[in-house]
């Protein structure tokens, strides 16, 4: 650790009273509060930060913001490690650890740098042309290619932090907290609008922080402080710093990503790490600024080549000299400010190289005053030095041939500041569907026609002068407030600023090297795309900007070509001999800068990925040691294992107890729909294939409903509760879809029917009491319902009290046993269940789970989702006789289609293993000859399979071609993926009590 040799003696916005210790590549350094990792590294003289994607070239720090393509690092270790962070955005905090990535063994000596020697063999798209022989080797080639690609390393442990979401509704959303954005916020805030302001950086002020402009004759920072203070007092204004507007969606919905605790060493665990905002804004002001463009010349990627604005920011904002001796290379005016500021910070400016022949005398005088030389009409043709700039070669530039001329002159320096002009940050504007246009004066794309309720102001709108920024900001803020319905007179008067010059840019897209000059000219620094790569794409016909991008990977890195795209497409325009707008841009897509998957996920993590739906008896099942199974959002008790029992034994025991004594299962998740209205019966009659008009009050009927295409949709029972009042049950899985289906027909198709639908699934706790002893048990728990077979026959409905709770009793049976379904108001569910369990103990009652329930219904040939699979008809499933011939119902007309009446349709059958022992594999296919080599024609499929503890042999349901005609024949159920095959006999699907004596008894 030493004293930060490149830190200026004073100045900057860092807190020199608060030194911070951090580690980079294993070495310990010191910086200050207010530093970024990049500024702290530079303060310590560290320029070599990373290695490039393909050639593993040494790379340094190019920028001071979100656009950084080079200085990507891996921070922290273990579960909190994070790859690909931009050193320019990482707020320094005590104990930060960071390291270079994509290099081995070290960033200083990286063996993969040999790729550079072969670079001639591996131009853009080389992999499409090779690695094809021998074809078997591709797997090995790919392995090597994959290992070489990628940047940082993914964590391998679950993320220990938490994240959250927030919704916001703003009259005016201002994006960007520079002078423009602050002015806009002030205008809208004063008008009384609800304003949300989002700024990606820690501090407010944007580009002002990096400069030394004056506002109202004072340092701009004073003005910023005043405005922020005023905004903070406004109740309806919300200021969000460290917050990136990541995405702009339809109807003015903007996604913001806020970094809440990322910058802290140890954080308050009550706070989320990051917060994702979804802002629905009436109006949006985009004040996102502009990003400086680098220039394309030989070895323009060397550490020490830096954007002029970034070098200026390091000097002014962070008190860091990015080098000792600098050269400034520019094609526009803005870099002159940088030259002066760097010089003032104590950097030796060797010279300013300007491609323009004519430069404003004001600027030249300024340089002269500071003792800085200037070479106009000249360019930097190349950089020397590998891990750091050591000197540059300068030549005169012939504008007619667009080539350097004469003799190169070598200038010693360790810092080369470049400025190729500015690209307004139009990303969000484009995402909002705004159309951009190319501005020849600025040589950049600027907003043209807006599509949503949004406007751009300041530099992102192509207004590069501070005075214009302030004015546009004030106007935009005012206009937005007015559009949002606020009355405010005129825009606030923008404050006065110092003198300014126009940018006066002369486009310079590529500095071709003099002949025999070696080295690479990078367009896309992160993805190692060079100017010759663009030329290669051109000569191979990949000339559309989209093909250029995909063939060379230009702009596909983590920086999304933020600083490279315009240079790349300008070079392509030159090659094609067309204007830049003819080439066009690639599509700007969310997110603006990458955001964590954690923030997008928010609280929907782990067990909370989706909400859990619990029945009223859930806690009982937990206490009883149930194993749970997800059924949609519900968690249902699957089986209650007893100590010493295997899973299969437990399931078998439960299923047996129902047939032998009595069992009870929680059926609360079944969908329940309360149907009332004068036309309720007519409605049901149209919904179900069978008749519901003549169902008497106090009776239950089983019903089947189809989709309009004639395929079975759902089944269940419906009870006539009272006059014009029914209750329908649906399968658990279809509870939601059936409700929507019914609502659609009731509201949209048959609005003339008087029918009201209310979901009462949650109102009633449901329990099915089944088994020969169920009546006896029921008698013990009700005083007021006569449950005798005469008073309460099969398919009867009664109300009364059960275990002291008001109850509905349905004499229905899924298990095929004497059975009752009890519904009690859900708040009573737990107690009633417990009470019945207690009362049933002497009879040997057993709770049973979904597994045993499934066995019982398979034994009875009752169908569920395996059979109602969206492809089967009522006829296939044996419901043919239920199809009414006297009325219309949903799906009826489709039933005449020939394929629905084919002879070979697969019909529901039962299967029994021929040997009476071997389980019928779940998911098996049915074939005639298991030995036949593929393709082996399949006659059908096993839809449900189990071991029947009551029959003491395995059984299964299946759908088999023409199955009903093949009862008694043998076929084979084969499951190659589990290596099982069994000879099976085709039977009727009802295995137990086909005469239905048990359930009617």
């Amino acid at each position: 650790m030493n004293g930060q040799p490149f830190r200026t003696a004073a100045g900057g916005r860092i807190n020199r009273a608060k030194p911070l210790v951090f580690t980079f590549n294993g070495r310990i350094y010191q910086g200050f509060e207010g530093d970024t990792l990049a500024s702290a590294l530079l303060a310590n003289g560290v320029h070599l930060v990373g290695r490039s994607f393909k050639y593993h070239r040494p790379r340094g720090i190019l920028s001071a913001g979100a656009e950084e393509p080079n200085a990507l690092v891996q921070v922290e270790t273990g579960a909190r490690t994070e790859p690909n962070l931009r050193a320019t955005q990482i707020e320094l905090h005590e104990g930060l650890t960071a390291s270079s990535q994509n290099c081995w063994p070290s960033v200083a000596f990286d063996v993969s740098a040999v790729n550079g020697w072969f670079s001639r063999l591996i131009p853009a798209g080389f992999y499409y042309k090779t690695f094809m022989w021998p074809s078997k080797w591709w797997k090995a080639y790919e392995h090597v290619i994959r290992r070489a690609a990628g940047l940082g390393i993914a964590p391998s442990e679950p993320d220990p932090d938490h994240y959250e979401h927030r919704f916001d509704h703003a009259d005016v959303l201002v994006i960007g907290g520079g002078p423009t954005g602050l002015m806009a916020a002030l205008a809208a805030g004063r008008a009384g609008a609800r304003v949300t302001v989002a700024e990606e950086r820690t501090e407010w002020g944007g580009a002002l922080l990096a400069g030394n402009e004056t506002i109202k004759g004072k340092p701009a920072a004073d003005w910023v402080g005043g405005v922020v203070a005023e905004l903070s007092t406004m109740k309806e204004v919300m200021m969000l710093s460290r917050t990136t507007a990541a995405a702009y969606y339809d109807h003015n919905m903007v996604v913001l990503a806020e970094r809440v605790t990322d910058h802290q060493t140890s954080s308050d665990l009550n706070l989320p790490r990051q917060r994702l905002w979804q802002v629905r804004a009436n109006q949006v002001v985009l004040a996102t600024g502009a990003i400086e463009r680098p220039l394309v010349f030989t070895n323009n990627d060397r550490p020490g080549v830096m954007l002029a604005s970034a070098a200026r920011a390091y000097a002014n904002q962070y008190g860091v000299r990015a080098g000792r001796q600098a050269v400034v290379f520019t094609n526009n005016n803005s870099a002159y400010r940088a030259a002066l500021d760097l010089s003032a910070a104590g950097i030796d400016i060797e010279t300013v190289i300007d491609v323009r022949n004519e430069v404003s005398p004001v600027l030249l005088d300024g340089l002269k005053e500071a003792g800085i030389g200037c070479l106009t009409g000249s360019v930097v043709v190349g950089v020397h030095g590998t891990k750091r700039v050591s000197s540059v070669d300068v030549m005169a530039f012939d504008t007619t041939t667009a080539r350097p001329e004469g003799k190169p002159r070598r200038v010693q320096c360790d810092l080369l500041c470049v400025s190729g002009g500015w690209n307004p940050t139009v990303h969000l504007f484009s995402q909002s569907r705004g159309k951009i246009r190319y501005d020849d004066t600025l040589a950049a794309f600027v907003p043209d026609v807006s599509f949503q309720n949004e406007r751009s102001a300041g530099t992102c709108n192509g207004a590069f002068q501070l005075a214009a920024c302030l004015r546009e900001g004030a106007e935009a803020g005012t206009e937005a407030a007015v559009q949002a319905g606020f009355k405010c007179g005129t825009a606030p008067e923008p404050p006065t600023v110092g003198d300014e010059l126009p940018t006066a840019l002369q486009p310079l897209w590529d500095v071709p090297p003099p002949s025999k000059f070696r080295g690479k000219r990078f367009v896309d620094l992160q993805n190692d795309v060079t100017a010759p790569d663009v030329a290669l794409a051109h000569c191979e016909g990949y000339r559309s900007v989209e093909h250029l991008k995909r063939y060379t990977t230009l702009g596909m890195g983590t920086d999304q070509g933020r600083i490279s795209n315009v240079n790349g497409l300008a070079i392509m325009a030159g090659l094609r001999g067309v204007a830049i707008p003819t080439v066009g841009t690639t599509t700007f897509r969310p997110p603006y800068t990458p955001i964590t998957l954690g923030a997008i996920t928010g609280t929907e993590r782990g067990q909370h990925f989706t909400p859990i739906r619990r029945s009223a008896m859930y806690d009982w099942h937990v206490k009883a040691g149930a194993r749970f199974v997800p059924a949609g959002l519900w968690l249902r008790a699957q089986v209650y294992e007893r100590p010493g029992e295997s899973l299969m034994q437990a399931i078998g025991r439960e299923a047996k107890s129902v047939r032998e004594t009595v069992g009870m299962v929680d059926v609360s998740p079944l969908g329940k729909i309360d149907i009332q209205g004068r036309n309720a019966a007519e409605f049901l009659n149209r919904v179900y294939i069978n008749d519901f008009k003549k169902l008497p009050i106090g009776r239950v009927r089983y019903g089947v409903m189809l989709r309009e295409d004639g395929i079975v949709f759902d089944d269940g029972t419906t009870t006539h509760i009272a006059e014009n009042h029914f209750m329908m049950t649906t399968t658990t899985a279809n509870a939601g879809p059936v409700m929507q289906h019914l609502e659609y027909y009731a509201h949209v198709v048959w609005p003339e029917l008087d029918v009201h639908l209310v979901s009462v699934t949650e109102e009633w706790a449901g329990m099915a009491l089944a088994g020969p002893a169920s009546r006896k048990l029921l008698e013990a728990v009700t005083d007021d319902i006569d449950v005798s077979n005469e008073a309460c026959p099969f398919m009867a409905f009664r109300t009364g009290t059960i275990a002291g709770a008001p109850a509905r009793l349905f004499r229905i049976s899924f298990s095929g046993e004497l059975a009752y379904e009890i519904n009690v108001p859900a708040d009573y569910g737990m107690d009633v269940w417990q009470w019945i369990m207690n009362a049933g103990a002497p009879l040997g009652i057993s709770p049973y789970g979904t597994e045993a329930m499934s066995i019982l219904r398979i034994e009875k040939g009752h169908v569920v989702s395996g059979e109602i699979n969206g492809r089967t008809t009522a006829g296939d499933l044996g419901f043919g006789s239920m199809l009414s011939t006297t009325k219309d119902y949903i799906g009826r007309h489709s039933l005449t289609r020939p394929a629905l009446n084919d002879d070979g349709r697969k019909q529901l059958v039962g299967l029994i293993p021929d040997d009476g022992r071997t389980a019928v594999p779940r998911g098996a296919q049915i074939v005639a000859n298991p030995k036949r080599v593929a393709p082996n024609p399949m006659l059908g499929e096993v839809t449900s399979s189990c071991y029947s503890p009551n029959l003491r042999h395995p059984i299964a349901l299946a759908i088999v071609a023409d199955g009903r005609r093949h009862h008694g024949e043998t076929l084979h159920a084969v499951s190659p993926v589990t290596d099982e095959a069994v000879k099976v006999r085709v039977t009727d699907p009802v295995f137990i009590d086909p005469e239905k004596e048990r359930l009617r008894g």
Partner: protein
Amino acid sequence: MTRYSIFSLARNAFNNHRDWPAAWRSPEPKAEYDVIIIGGGGHGLATAFYLAEEHGVTNVAVLEKGWLGGGNTGRNTTIVRSNYLLEGNAHFYEKSMKLWETMSQELNFNVMMSHRGVLNLAHSDPQVDAFQRRGNAMRLNGIDAEYLDRNEIQRLVPLLDCSDNTRYPIMGGLLQPRGGTARHDAVAWGYARGADARGVDIIQNCEVTGIKRDDGRVTGVETTRGAIKAKKVGIAVAGHTTQLCQMAGVDVPIESHVLQAMVSEPIKPCLNTVVTSGAAHCYISQSDKGELVFGGDLDGYNSFAQRGNFPIIEHVVASVCALFPAFSRLRLMRTWGGVVDMSMDGSPIIAKTPVDGLYLNGGWCYGGFKATPGSGWVFAHTIAGDRPHALNECFSLERFATGCVLDEKGAGPVPGAH
């Protein structure tokens, strides 16, 4: 056509790669072609390639309104598989899979077909049943399939959360080892280069605006670059199928929906299998460049915008984090959308139409990338011989009226549900 080889690469290296020929010409459209293919996506280009290669029909033009491969071919998650349950689908996609296996060599263009395996995760008993049922059907049809238990899955995909401590614990999975991914753009470029070399005219920036008919028979097309005559016209425009068919007065059971996909920042290899999950509604793989590529359900409403909205992104990302809790700290780098042609039963239509000489290839939903070679192959056969190949007989337009639909999901005539 300059053959690509390590030698041609080395030779060109000496010239600083200045002498490579264009991968395909950009000719002016001729006045008339034997066959016009509308749509320069993978399917259209493959069709043109196989027309020339297999049927000797070379007086062919592919008309593309934008840039080649800029439709769904250029925006899909590149999953290639043939793990279908229903007969018709199984045989067709398996033919396609076989063509994938030799595509790079056949085209002399490395499409980077990576047979890294496609794993479908089951999170419930019914899903276990369904996957085994499908795996069994595949095996009986001669297609590779393996059923893996949780331990085997954990070994194959170490970062996957295979614990019980998740909302939808993983119970097992169906692996198709030969499934995998391919470099999507290369598929379009490879077929374009191959077709061009065999005489096909590939014409970009040429939008078809009308289909000309005479007496119930196709005679040509109107385009933004003028009218072009043709004896036969094949439509392969994915999301725009309805619009093109309407130009010829043909109604199709298709809706256009937007499907989004996204990539993370590039990272070193950490996921070597394609993983899909029914319960979590997402599919994910890692590209050779290092990004995680993932997607999920449709946005859920008709759309012709190649952009979607946030709810689906949120859901897909949450699903990814549910499966891979370690990925939560990785970052989303780019999202995009494509307009997919959702058919009413979820299966494609590759068929003759009621208009003579007009052929349709569409209804690919979100699964047509893997079909690219097979689709081109059977469509070329259908066009050349004016009758479907046995492999695409089941993909007729008439199946909806007869009821012979191919509904893998059993979702019914709700296009957004497939």
